[in-house]
């Protein structure tokens, strides 16, 4: 039972990683760049929903919608101002710019909201009005699954299904896949590549906002660096699953969450992250393109 409960907590943490990893992997797949500011968009999403709930006293679901709207705009603006002018530049220049944007967002958040952690009211409180844990009790109370975990997993599955459908069966999704394979050929078929990249950033950032709200609900605190560690872990998850692949990001995220949760429970809380990255190294040694990534030989 104990094991099951750790496993479920791992899956729900992993679901958050998976949603963040989807943002990384989609942007990488299409723009062939690592958007290291993605983690900080999560943090902005968290702050926006925090402000909406505590200052504007909006209900939780509305704060999520607001956070998604703000982050979508933020993502498109970042792409337009920072990355678009560098479309022809070397990938290293874009990478450095992304790190710059990441620091910019963190410091801007620190100026606006201060460096001290803010207490975040979870979307689903841990205790209900009667003071009982807000959880699904199974096996005569031996296994309790918080409703929050269930919510996170449900959101993750919905996002996953929606994205799979979107990229597979809508014209914009197909345009995205075409751009990720061959931008030159895609634009000669009349596809506006810049617009497609903007849309990708918009979707990734909206997902980041959702992830931000879920993450803050999970950790119940919020500060300007909230997004960086989950951001890095989600990036790891994307690489783990095979960067550029949507099911890969999903699988990588869930596995990473489970490994982290089990390592914390059975090995050592402090060593959990070290174990996590050690597993990543081992996987990459065996399968350099990740679990579901395709090995693409360099053309000569």
């Amino acid at each position, binding site marked *: 039972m104990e094991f099951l409960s750790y496993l479920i907590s791992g899956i729900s943490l992993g679901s958050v990683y998976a949603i963040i990893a989807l943002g990384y992997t989609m942007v990488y797949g299409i723009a062939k760049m690592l958007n290291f500011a993605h983690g900080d968009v999560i943090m902005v999403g968290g702050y926006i929903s925090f402000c909406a709930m505590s200052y504007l006293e909006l209900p939780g679901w509305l704060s999520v919608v607001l956070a998604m709207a703000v982050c979508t705009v933020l993502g498109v603006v970042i792409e337009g101002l920072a990355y678009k002018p560098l479309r022809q530049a070397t990938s290293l220049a874009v990478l450095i710019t992304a790190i710059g944007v990441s620091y910019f967002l963190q410091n801007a958040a620190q100026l606006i909201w201060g460096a001290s952690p803010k207490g975040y009211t979870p979307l689903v409180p841990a205790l209900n009005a009667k003071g009982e844990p807000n959880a699904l009790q199974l096996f005569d109370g031996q296994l309790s699954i918080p409703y929050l975990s269930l919510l996170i997993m449900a959101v993750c599955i919905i996002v996953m299904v929606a994205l799979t459908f979107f990229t597979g069966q809508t014209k914009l999704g*197909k345009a995205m896949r075409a751009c990720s394979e061959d931008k030159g050929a895609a634009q000669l078929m009349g*596809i506006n590549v810049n617009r497609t990249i903007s849309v990708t950033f918009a979707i990734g950032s909206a997902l980041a906002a959702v992830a931000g709200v879920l993450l803050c609900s999970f950790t119940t605190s919020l500060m300007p660096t909230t997004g960086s560690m989950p951001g890095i872990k989600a990036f790891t998850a994307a690489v783990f699953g095979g960067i550029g692949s949507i099911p890969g990001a999903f699988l990588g995220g869930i596995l990473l969450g489970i490994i982290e949760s089990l390592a914390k429970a059975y090995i050592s809380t402090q060593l959990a992250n070290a174990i996590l990255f050690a597993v990543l190294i081992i996987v990459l040694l065996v399968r350099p393109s990740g679990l579901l990534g395709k090995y693409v030989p360099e053309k000569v």
Partner: protein
Amino acid sequence: MAEKKVFEKGKMVPVPSVSIIPERDLGKSPILECSHLGIDFGGLTAVNEFNITVGRTEIAGLIGPNGAGKTTVFNLLTKVYQPTRGTILLDGLDTHGKTPAQINRMGIARTFQNIRLFNNLSVEDNVKIGLHNQEKYSMVSGILRLPKYWRQEKAAHERALELLSIFDMQHMANYQAGSLPYGAQRRLEIVRALATNPSLLLLDEPAAGMNPSETAELMENIVKIRDMFQIAIMLIEHDMSLVMGICEGICVLNFGQIIAKGTAEEIQSNPTVIEAYLGKQQ
């Protein structure tokens, strides 16, 4: 001043090559007019003084030795490269400053010398990428699967199968494009280009790697496409049987310059062309 006049759209027809437009197209305005077109890469002039006029339903050939600048001309026409000099009028409209995607929407579609299909997409999806700009529904109706999405996707599906049937490929619709045999990939590239609804189709070495019987079939198909869609086709090709067999106007390029223009007979007997291909007679 004379240079500037060319920019005014559709008013001034460049002088050259009017003579090789087939008679049936003479009454109509040409689909493509290039005048003084040229591009430099650093100090190297890759194409210079490229003047050509292509009629509405003409099949035009662009030939020349390796490295003559033929593909560069295609890249200029589709704005993969922005020209250094000169103008390109497509259906009387100046294409100055347009992006490749805009050029495609204006009516130029192309295939590539080395096949550039979207290999991981299905055959049908490759064709649907070509139909991208003709499918009109918003992202919202796509995600929520509103009736408009279903209608448009159904229409696109039918159109894709219809286009594939030109080459008898409808049964391959669900295959992965990358897994098709070579000849089928070449044909799919043409179908994908046709899906964008062009008025000028550029084929970059369509017969490369084909055996004589496949080439003969391709020749029939190119003529068939022209007759079906009533469009102009311009092709680069090294296979002389194909070029001499179906091209009504042929333009020979060497070192980035046009050295001859005319019908198949005129080109075959042109001493400059023979010299470019075979060298000077001792």
